[in-house]
């Protein structure tokens, strides 16, 4: 997990939200762990019509201005990685309207 480029912290959780491993800026961060678990359970019920009955989300990303979190589930474990965004690459995910 440490080999991910730009990563400033990571968390590995069980499906119930227990922290298995943590490091960096997310070390021992139970608060973020609970928030992420709730987020995942919400995402599972988003849109049965647009996404089909069995199509669960493979990856969730939460992007701020200078860093972002990548969340995915694999092998009954939830992986959360906090990665920073270098200013040059920041074209932004803002949906210009």
């Amino acid at each position, binding site marked *: 997990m440490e080999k991910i480029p730009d990563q400033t912290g990571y968390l590995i959780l069980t499906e119930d939200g227990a922290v298995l491993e943590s490091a960096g800026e997310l070390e021992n961060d139970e608060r973020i762990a609970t928030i992420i678990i*709730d987020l995942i*359970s*919400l995402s599972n*019920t988003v849109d049965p019509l647009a996404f089909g009955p069995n199509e669960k989300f493979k990856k969730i990303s939460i992007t701020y201005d200078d860093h972002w979190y990548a969340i995915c589930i694999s092998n009954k474990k939830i992986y959360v990685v906090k990665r920073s965004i270098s200013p040059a690459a920041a074209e932004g995910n803002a949906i210009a309207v």
Partner: protein
Amino acid sequence: MVDDLRKYLNHLLEKVNGLHCILITDRDGVPVVRAVTERAPQLALRPNFISTFGMATDQASKLGLGRNKTIISMYSSYQVIQMNKLPLIITFIGSDNCNTGHILSLESQIEPFLKDLAAVVADAP
């Protein structure tokens, strides 16, 4: 069965921020299943409050838009959402800034349990 349902409703109560209680009652407001937190206003849990929905939904169905399904009432510090699932009524009471859309989406999650409950209500003389 009712205990499992109550546990499930309590779980839903925790999921939605600001939701104070979920009640499934018959048309007269007699409770079938109740899941309440301490913040639920006691007066609103009584049958005489819940039964007003029966009349309201009948009248609302006469507006020419078809059968009335849901009535959302916003009060100064609470919001009450009631769904017409006759012979049952589902009542949600939440804070005024609670996510109304999220509560409405709970309908599809509670619906599967209503068939068995409706049988209970229908059998009563």
